C-alpha cells in the first residue's frame, strides 16, 4: 500500500528515457536510410530530371531510363548485363563447391580429429585474415601457367580456395554441436566414414549449408579485388568491377551509376530480406566464437 506513491516518479523517469531511446533510434534510422533514399529517388528519375542541384527532390514521374542505360548500355556506357551474367556464372559453382568442401573439412575437423588437426585448423583459419595483396602476384603467375588467368573458372577456383577457411570454420563449429554419441552409435552399427556422414551428419546439415551458401554467395558476389586483377578482359569482369568502372567514368551520368549500384546490390539484398536469419548467423560465425 505504501508503495502506491512510488511508481509515479519512476514511471516519469522511464518515460523520459523512452524519449531519448526513440529519438536516438530514429536518428540512426535516418542515417542508415539516407543513402537508400538517394539511391532510390535518383535511380527512378528520368534523364531530364537529373540535376545535382535538385538531387534530394522526389522524382515527378516514374522512369526506368537509368536502369535501362545501366543494364543495356548506350551513349558511351557499357551495360552491366554481361557482367551480371559473369557474376552468376562465377558465384553459383563457387558456392556449391565451397559448401561441399567446407562440409567435408568441418566433418573431419570436428569428428575425426587426428594429432595436429587443431594446428591444421588454426593454419587454415589464418588464410581468411590475410590481405590478398600478399598473394596476388604469385596467384596471377600460377593462373597464367595453368591457363586459368582471365577466365571464369579461374575466378571460381580462387574463390573456392580462399573460401576454404570460413566455410571450414562455420561447418566445424556447426558439426561440433552434433553429439559425439550419435557418431559413436553409428560406428558401432558398422557405418564407415561416408556412412556416418550420410546417415548422421547430412540429415542435420541443412541449416549449416544454408548459412555457408548465403555467406559464400554474398561475399563472392560482392568481392572486388580478385575480380579486378584476374579479369583483365572487360567481357569477363564481374559486376563489382563493372560498377566501379561505371563510377570511375566521368562521362557516365550519376543517375546511371546509382541505378547500376542498385542492380549490383539487389541479389544480396534479396537474400538478406528473405534469409536474414541465416545471413546473420554466417556473420557471427565469422567472429570465430559462433
Amino acid at each position, binding site marked *: 500500500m505504501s508503495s502506491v506513491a512510488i511508481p509515479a516518479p519512476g514511471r516519469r523517469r522511464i518515460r523520459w528515457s523512452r524519449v531519448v531511446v526513440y529519438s536516438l533510434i530514429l536518428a540512426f534510422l535516418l542515417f*542508415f536510410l539516407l543513402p537508400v533514399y538517394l539511391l532510390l529517388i535518383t535511380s527512378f528519375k528520368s534523364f531530364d530530371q537529373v540535376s545535382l542541384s535538385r538531387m534530394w527532390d522526389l522524382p515527378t514521374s516514374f522512369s526506368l531510363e537509368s536502369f535501362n542505360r545501366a543494364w543495356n548500355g548506350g551513349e558511351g556506357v557499357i551495360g552491366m548485363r554481361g557482367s551480371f551474367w559473369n557474376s552468376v556464372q562465377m558465384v553459383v559453382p563457387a558456392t556449391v563447391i565451397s559448401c561441399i568442401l567446407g562440409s567435408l573439412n568441418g566433418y573431419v575437423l570436428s569428428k575425426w580429429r587426428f594429432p595436429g588437426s587443431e594446428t591444421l585448423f588454426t*593454419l*587454415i583459419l589464418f588464410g581468411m585474415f*590475410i590481405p590478398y595483396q600478399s598473394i596476388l602476384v604469385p596467384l596471377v603467375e600460377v593462373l597464367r601457367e595453368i591457363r586459368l588467368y582471365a577466365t571464369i573458372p579461374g575466378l571460381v577456383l580462387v574463390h573456392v580456395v580462399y573460401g576454404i*577457411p570460413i566455410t571450414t570454420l562455420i561447418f566445424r563449429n556447426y558439426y561440433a554441436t552434433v553429439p559425439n554419441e550419435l557418431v559413436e552409435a553409428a560406428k558401432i552399427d558398422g557405418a*564407415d*566414414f561416408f556412412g556416418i556422414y550420410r546417415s548422421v551428419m547430412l540429415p542435420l546439415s541443412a541449416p549449416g549449408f544454408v548459412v555457408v551458401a548465403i555467406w559464400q554467395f554474398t561475399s563472392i558476389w560482392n568481392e*572486388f579485388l580478385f575480380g579486378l586483377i584476374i579479369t583483365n578482359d572487360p567481357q569477363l569482369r564481374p559486376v563489382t568491377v563493372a560498377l566501379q568502372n561505371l563510377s570511375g567514368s566521368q562521362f557516365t551520368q550519376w543517375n546511371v551509376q546509382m541505378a547500376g549500384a542498385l542492380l549490383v546490390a539487389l541479389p544480396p*539484398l534479396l537474400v538478406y530480406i528473405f534469409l536474414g536469419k541465416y545471413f546473420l548467423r554466417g556473420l557471427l560465425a565469422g567472429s*570465430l566464437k559462433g
Partner: protein
Amino acid sequence: MQQAETLSARPARRVRWMNRDRAIALLMIAPSALAIAVFVYGFIGWTAYISMTDWRGLAISTSFVGFDNYLTIFSTGRFQTNIRNLIVFTLFFLASCLVIGLLLAVLVDARIRFEGFFRSVYIFPMALSFIVTGVVWQWLFAPGNWPNDPTGINLLFKQSGLGFLQAAWTTDTNVVPGWRIEGLRTRIGIPMAMIPVVVAAVWQMSGFVMAMYLAGLRGIPDEIKEAARVDGATEWQVFRHITLPMLQPITLSAVIILGHISLKIFDLIITMTGGAPGNNTEVPGLYMYEITFKANKFAEGAAVAMVMLVVVALLVVPYLIYNRRTEVER
C-alpha cells in the same frame, strides 16, 4: 571358414576399420590442406621472395637485393602518408563502430517497438558490396560549389537551414594539425578527406558490431542484473559494472574482425576517392595495387604487401593462438 574368421577377428577388425576411416578422413581434408599450403603459405613465401628482388617492369628479375625495397618504400613520402592515413582510418573506424555498435545494441535491446525492423535496417548495409557503398557515399559527400551551389549532403544541410555544416568533405586537402617532423616526409595529423570515408565504412559495418553485442547482451542472465538492482545499484552502475565487463570478449572479437578489415581496406577507398585529394586518402592496399599493376614495380609492391601482412598478422595471430588454447582447454 570365412565366417569363423570374421567372428574371431572382430576386435582386431574394428581397429582396422577405424584406421581405414582415419585414412579416408585424412584423404578428404588433404586437398583443402594442400590448397591452403600452396595458395596461402606458398604464395606468401613467393611474395616475400619477390619483395627481396629488384623486379621492375614486365620481365621477371630474380637478383637478390635484401631489404632494399623495404627501405625504399619506407623512405618515400607517399608510403609514409599511406601509413598515416591507415592509422587515422583504423582508429576512427574502430572507435566509431564500437561505440555506435554498442549504443545500437543497447537501444535495440531496450524493449522497443518494431525491434526486428530497426535491427534489420541497421544490419542491411553488411549485405552490400563496399563498391556499392562507395558509389552511393561518393555522391553524398560530393561537395559541389559550396556554400552557394552545393550538392549531396551539403545541399541537404543548406535546404534544412544547417548551411553552416557544409564542408569540402572528400575534396578537403587539409591535414589537422599537420605537424612536420624532422625526417618524416609526411605531415602528421588527420587528413580531413578521410572523415567521409570513415563515415561510409561505419555506415556499412556498425550494424555488424551491433549484432555481435546484441548476441552478447542476450547472453547475460537477467538474474545477475536483478541481484545488483536489488542491492541498490542504479541502471548505469549495472551497465558499467556488470554488462560492460561481460561484453569484453565480444569487444575483443569485434576489434579483431574490424581491425583486419580496416588494415586491408581497398574497395571502398578506390571507389569513393581513388586515394585523392593528393594522396590524402590513399592506403597501403591501394598503393600496392597502383605500383604493382599500374607501374609494374613488382618488388616494391610485394614489399608493401608484406608490410600489410605483417601488420595484420600482429593483430590476428595472437588471437588465433589464444582461441585455440581456450578451445583445447574446453
